[in-house]
């Protein structure tokens, strides 16, 4: 696992704002697999863990599915979560985080869009969050996650993903913060890069795992509970 601490280049607010407005598109093999399931099955319970996306809400409700939206990256930026472990190292309080987020009955969801959160969340939250997601998924439920490859640098932009149909995703550069002033501020930094073995370890409780390698230094991972 390759860890990044901070950014190699100071954030430029003007650049960040311009990036936030621009949207890119990319093909996604993982989304293609999920859209087949979304098109053929009715009234699925779907959890979207990225920033609020009107496009995703529209796409899923048009198909008659039930969508739950929860911005985990935003929630993990809560200063109240900061604490120190027994060795004095700053960490985030995962127990408190899970007592305030991802509160749903076990086995509720058919599908979870985890997007790229594992790469941008604080390390102390990643394993507990994936453990919670395992319990929230129904047996046979699927989770889609994106991971950067080692070619990605610490300033790899953090995107929120909008499903635009078929296998296409629209990517929007995001900033942290709920209000307008924060949105024009800092962008989340890539915390680390997981290799395949680490990813398999993260999802070891799941019954199957499938990797798709994309061109943009991103691996898509589709896991089934």
């Amino acid at each position, binding site marked *: 696992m390759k860890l990044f601490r901070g950014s190699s280049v100071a954030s430029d607010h003007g650049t960040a704002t311009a990036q936030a407005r621009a*949207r890119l598109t990319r093909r996604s093999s993982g989304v293609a697999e999920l859209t087949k399931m979304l098109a053929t099955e*009715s009234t699925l319970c779907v959890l979207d863990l990225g920033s*609020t996306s*009107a*496009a995703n*809400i*529209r796409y899923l*409700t*048009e*198909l*008659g599915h*039930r*969508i*739950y*939206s*929860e*911005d985990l990256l935003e929630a993990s930026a809560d200063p109240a979560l900061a604490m120190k472990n027994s060795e004095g190292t700053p960490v985030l309080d995962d127990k408190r985080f899970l007592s305030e987020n991802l509160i749903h009955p076990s086995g509720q969801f058919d599908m979870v869009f985890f997007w790229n959160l594992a790469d941008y969340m604080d390390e102390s939250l990643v394993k507990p969050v994936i453990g919670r997601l395992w319990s929230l998924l129904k047996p046979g439920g699927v989770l889609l996650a994106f991971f950067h490859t080692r070619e990605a640098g610490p300033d790899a932009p953090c995107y929120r993903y*909008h499903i*635009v*149909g078929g296998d296409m995703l*629209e990517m*929007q550069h995001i900033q942290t913060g*709920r209000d307008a002033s924060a949105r024009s501020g800092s962008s989340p930094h890539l915390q680390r890069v997981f290799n395949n073995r680490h990813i398999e370890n993260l999802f070891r409780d799941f019954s199957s795992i499938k990797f798709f390698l994309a061109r943009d230094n991103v691996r898509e991972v589709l896991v089934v509970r």
Partner: protein
Amino acid sequence: MDTPKTAELAHIGRSVTVKGELSGSEDLFIDGQVEGTIELRGNNLTIGPHGFVKAHVNAKDVVVQGKLEGNIQASQRAQLQKSAVAMGDIVTKRVAIEEGAFFKGKIDVQAEGGKGDAAEHTKSEMKSRGVGGSSE
């Protein structure tokens, strides 16, 4: 500021704080603070840009421009405008969420006369609001 254009409109101003159960048979615009429950049934509710509502809301159309903590039951339509911060579940027939709105919770779009009808209404509503960026 968008306020409902109806003959009868109750208005709770910015400096007003209400705790308890609010019910009525006219449209309501809230720009102050309300904590409790809001029952308007066949009428519309707008939470203005300065409004902060901690309540379960039941109305025909619900428009959120400010902050809402609580569930929305809208018999016709729920709309979160770009300045909205909404935490709770939404059950309605049509939903419109503008780009920039913050939402945490469940959205359940209920069919009017079957799944196809509901989907079509949702689609037209979204298009009219122009949400979803360049996806349209």
